[in-house]
């Protein structure tokens, strides 16, 4: 089956494009075809995965070149894919969660006239994401990289009639492009440096290159990763991206696409192993984002934005882990997968709530919904427990490992991660309180109700995964499994035993939870968002996403706008003005030069006489000179 793994990509791609071209007739079955395509990929993915499981440790990586994509001079790129342990896991995550979300969307988008198109976009996304993770050449990876960007653009702006949605889509794409610059430059550097852009070769050859090269490469890749994974400083687009339909937020802006940055770093482990500086940069980015995201998560009243903040924060964890080198790669992936489960779960839950609340996202209009929508509540609860790292749930294992490794790297990094865990507990509890507990603050004529089965079943499935996802860690299976790809790392001993640290973490989380519970159960929650002035600086900053947009506006957008205006002026008055001015001058000169043509014969005679004198003198001068 592995040699047919390209079907993973081909089928959703064809179905996606087909659905787009098909037109109105396709509306009846569009969603079914889309879902079928995605599930097909899932099945193929499963088969392939078990096939490589069947093989022995050594050769679990299968590569195949389909055709030569580009060849000119020394530049050679194969359209090739590699199905190994890492990409295998991703394929399962993408197609698995993806399929669930397809199913969920059937219900969620039922009343949308353009549902067929929605599923087409989803399919295209699946195809691109799979291209991204299966690529065995950085340029092909870039192809998928931009493909998911496009899908994300289309889906964020799916409700184009809303200006906000369209703007958000544009913003997302443009900010990602900034990251892509890094990505593109990295690939060029690889070509110039190693004469190849094949992932495997680059990650080997980088050892022969100078450290500075490796660092440059690492930083450029990191820039790309920041764009895609909404890491500081390119985080600003993610919260706006919540304009998209909720399943999109779940699939693209939580479970899969935004984690591509992490994948990129792990995939390029060779590069980052070769450069200490690059790794530290990754850690710094991860740590900052982790805290920033958590902070934002605490302040937002929009349930989706709060979740988005938490997504930022969780990806921060993964980045951090990935920055820790071989010790952390596996944990990064592990957390990535578990996060994929429970965050998709939470988002779909949020979607289900909105479904019941007439698409209201304002948590201050929720409250006491646990009775109204029990299934949603239970599944959401599972997700909640998983993300705060309640012992036994998947998040517990994955986050635990990361914080532990972080401490192993440096006390302060570990401390940051630890604090983040506490804050996570705080804002997630806040979300639970405002949504399911406390008293009802519903708008009138809103009648919360449970979502249809087609939506709840995926929730249940994901809820289960949120609980059981941790099983991958049993006996350190995932680390051993991934080791051939990401390399082996000695497990350095901490000052304190691991179990004690786990307890410590749990305690910190508990504190956060308790704090939040007290805060939001003491007095009733206001049904309207308090004015900025009335709240603390922390909340205000959080609401304004730590003023990231304002910063961009001031540093990038406005200067560019001014520059553009200036250049438009310059082009008209300066560059073009010079030319047209020249033409005008010629006209003036012409008018001037016809003046001597007075019509008086004697003046003509004079010019002849004078001319002859000049000629005589000129000739004499020429001889004397």
């Amino acid at each position: 089956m592995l040699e047919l793994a390209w079907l993973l990509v081909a089928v959703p791609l064809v179905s996606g494009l087909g659905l787009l071209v098909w037109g109105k007739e396709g509306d009846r079955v569009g969603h079914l075809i889309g879902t079928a395509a995605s599930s097909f990929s899932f099945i193929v993915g499963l088969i392939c995965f078990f096939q490589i499981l069947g093989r022995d440790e050594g050769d679990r990586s299968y590569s195949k070149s389909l055709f030569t994509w580009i060849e000119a001079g020394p530049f050679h790129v194969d359209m090739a894919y590699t199905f190994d342990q890492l990409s295998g896991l991703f394929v399962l995550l993408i197609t698995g969660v993806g399929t669930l979300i397809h199913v969920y969307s059937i219900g969620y988008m039922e009343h949308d006239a353009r549902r067929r198109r929605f599923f087409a976009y989803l399919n295209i996304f699946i195809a691109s994401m799979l291209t991204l993770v299966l690529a065995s050449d950085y340029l092909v990876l870039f192809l998928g990289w931009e493909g998911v960007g496009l899908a994300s653009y289309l889906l964020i702006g799916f409700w184009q009639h809303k200006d906000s949605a369209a703007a958000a889509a544009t913003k997302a794409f443009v900010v990602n492009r900034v990251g892509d610059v890094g990505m593109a430059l990295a690939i060029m550097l690889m070509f110039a440096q190693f004469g190849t852009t094949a992932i495997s070769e680059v990650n080997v050859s980088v050892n022969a290159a100078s450290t500075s090269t490796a660092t440059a490469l690492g930083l450029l890749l990191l820039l790309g990763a920041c764009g895609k994974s909404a890491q500081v400083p390119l985080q600003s687009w993610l919260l706006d991206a919540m304009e998209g339909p909720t399943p999109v937020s779940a699939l693209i802006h939580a479970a899969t696409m935004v984690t591509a940055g992490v994948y990129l770093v792990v995939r390029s482990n060779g590069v980052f192993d070769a450069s200490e500086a690059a790794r530290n940069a990754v850690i710094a980015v991860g740590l900052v984002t982790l805290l920033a995201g958590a902070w934002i998560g605490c302040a937002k009243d929009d349930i989706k934005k709060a979740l988005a903040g938490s997504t930022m924060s969780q990806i921060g964890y993964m980045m951090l882990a990935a920055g820790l080198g071989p010790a952390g790669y596996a944990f990064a992936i592990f957390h990535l997968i578990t996060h994929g489960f429970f965050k998709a779960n939470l988002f779909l839950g949020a979607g289900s709530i909105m479904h019941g609340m007439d698409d209201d996202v304002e948590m201050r209009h929720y409250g006491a919904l646990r009775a109204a929508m029990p299934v949603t509540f239970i599944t959401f609860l599972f997700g909640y427990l998983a993300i705060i790292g309640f012992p036994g749930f998947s998040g517990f294992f994955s986050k635990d490992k990361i914080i532990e490794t972080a401490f192993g790297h440096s006390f302060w990094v570990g401390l940051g991660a630890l604090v983040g865990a506490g804050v996570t507990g705080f804002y997630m509890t806040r979300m639970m309180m405002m949504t399911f507990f406390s008293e009802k603050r519903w708008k009138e004529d809103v009648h919360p109700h449970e979502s249809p089965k087609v939506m709840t079943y995926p929730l249940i499935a994901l809820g289960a995964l949120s609980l059981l996802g941790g099983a991958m860690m049993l006996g350190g299976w995932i680390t051993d499994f991934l080791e051939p790809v990401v390399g082996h790392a000695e497990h350095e001993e901490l000052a304190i035993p691991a179990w004690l640290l786990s307890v410590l973490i749990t305690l910190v989380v508990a504190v956060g939870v308790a704090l939040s519970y007290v805060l939001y159960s003491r007095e009733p929650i206001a049904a309207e968002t308090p004015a900025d002035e009335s709240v603390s600086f922390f909340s205000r900053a959080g609401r304004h996403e730590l003023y990231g947009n304002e910063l961009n506006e001031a540093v990038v957008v406005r200067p560019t706008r001014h520059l553009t205006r200036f250049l438009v002026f310059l082009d008209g008055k300066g560059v073009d003005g010079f030319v047209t001015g020249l033409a005008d001058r010629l006209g003036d000169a012409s008018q001037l030069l016809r003046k001597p043509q007075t019509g008086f014969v004697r003046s003509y005679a004079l010019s002849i006489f004078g001319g002859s004198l000049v000629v005589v003198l000129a000739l004499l001068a020429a001889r004397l000179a």
Partner: protein
Amino acid sequence: MFTADLPPITGPDVEYSLIAPILIITAAAVLGTLVEALVPRTRRFGVQAAVAVVGVLAAIGDTIWVYQSLDAVKGGGHSGRGQISTEGALSVDGPGVVTWLLLLVFALLSFLLFAERRLEGGLSAFTGRAADAPGSAGEAEATAARIEHTEVFPLASFALLGMMVFATANDLLTMFVALEVLSLPLYLMCGLARRRRLLSQEAALKYFLLGAFSSVFFLYGVALAYGYAGSFELGRIAVAVSSRTGSDTLLLASIALMAVGLLFKISAVPFHSWTPDVYQGAPTPVTAFMAAGTKTAAFVALLRVFFVAFGGATWDWRPTIWVIAVVTMFLGALVSIAQTDVKRMLAYSSIAHAGFLLVGFAGAYVGTTDRISSVSSVLFYLTVYGIATIGAFAIVTLIRDAGGEATHLSRWAGLGKASPFLAGSFALFMLSFAGIPLTSGFIGKWAVFSAAWSGGYWPLVVIGVLMSAVAAYFYVRVIVLMFFTDPVGDGPTIAVPSVLTTTVIAATAAATVFLGLVPGPMLDLAQHAGTFVR
């Protein structure tokens, strides 16, 4: 009974066969004068036209024969063809004969325009009785009686005769006489316009005064040259120049003064000022004849004098010519931008073209048999310029309104829709003037530029191309006017010409395209004419 003590007088030996074309034209002119006296008025016009045209055609045939019979001579290191004839008065050589051919063809085309009578309701473009004052009773009477000046044909024939001699004159005295023979009839013809006679007469006056003035400069130059070399023969002068006997000042002064006279005729700056006025005032057919013929004859004479007589002093006069070429191109191209009258515009463009011709001349590149020399490039340029000019003026005669020809450019708006053929042809001539490829003008520009560069004057070439860009600006605007602008009011009326004018336009347009696509034969002619025989 006195034979004993009289020294025997040996008559001059004249190679009649060689100079037969000249004689034929002379005969035609004289015959025309007789016709004027003998043939009754009613049939006179037709007869005159016939005589002139037949004469020219005969001359053309004979010229071709003469050209083939020219035998090669070794002169000045590389091949020339032909020989000095009539006791050294004329030098019937390759370039000379080719020039005859050009002049005769131009004359033929112009005569066809002269003979056009459809446009003025059965009358020619020339006034009935020049003696009558404009608007006088006599004029009206003359018009009513359908009196016509048929003298234009003999006059033009005499002018043509002068041109032909001018181009082949091998001694300065002959050249001066020829100069006058070609000028005097033209002075008169300028004043013969049927419409706008005030302007016409003014043009005649200006042309006459200035022409006489400049020819005196030429003559004084001749005198100084004689003083320097002791002879009028170009060959002898050349010897004197190269042997550097006599005072340089005398030589240089004579070069300068003769240059003035000749540059005046080709209307080079600063001796150009008569051109716009005369071109505008003269009857359009005459303008066509003048513009094409005079420039050709005068330019060949210029080349002959400077290459043959003053060839030894090249390094003295080249820089001056260089400068004059630049100034001429510049002023001609630039001032044409501001013109609003078609005929004046063409006049200024002819000034600009004089500049481009001077570029080729300034190159002073003698060339070898297989390369474009200054002479051959100029000859080619003259060909394409003359043809396009006559064609353009022919079209000018057709765009009319109540007052005769509507020469104000604004009246030309929208011509493209009114008459695609005329507008298309005119656009073609404009493109040729501008030197756009696939028209003859392009090849001409190429030729003169290459001659200049071969002569080592590449900066002149660069200036030249820039100037042609400036000139192009105006030609392009004319095309815009004709094709892209919608006509103002009722637009111009396009007179329906007789077959004569139509033939001229069609022929010139065809030639312009042909020489642009297949310049080979004409270049061959210009090139194998070789150099001047001394």
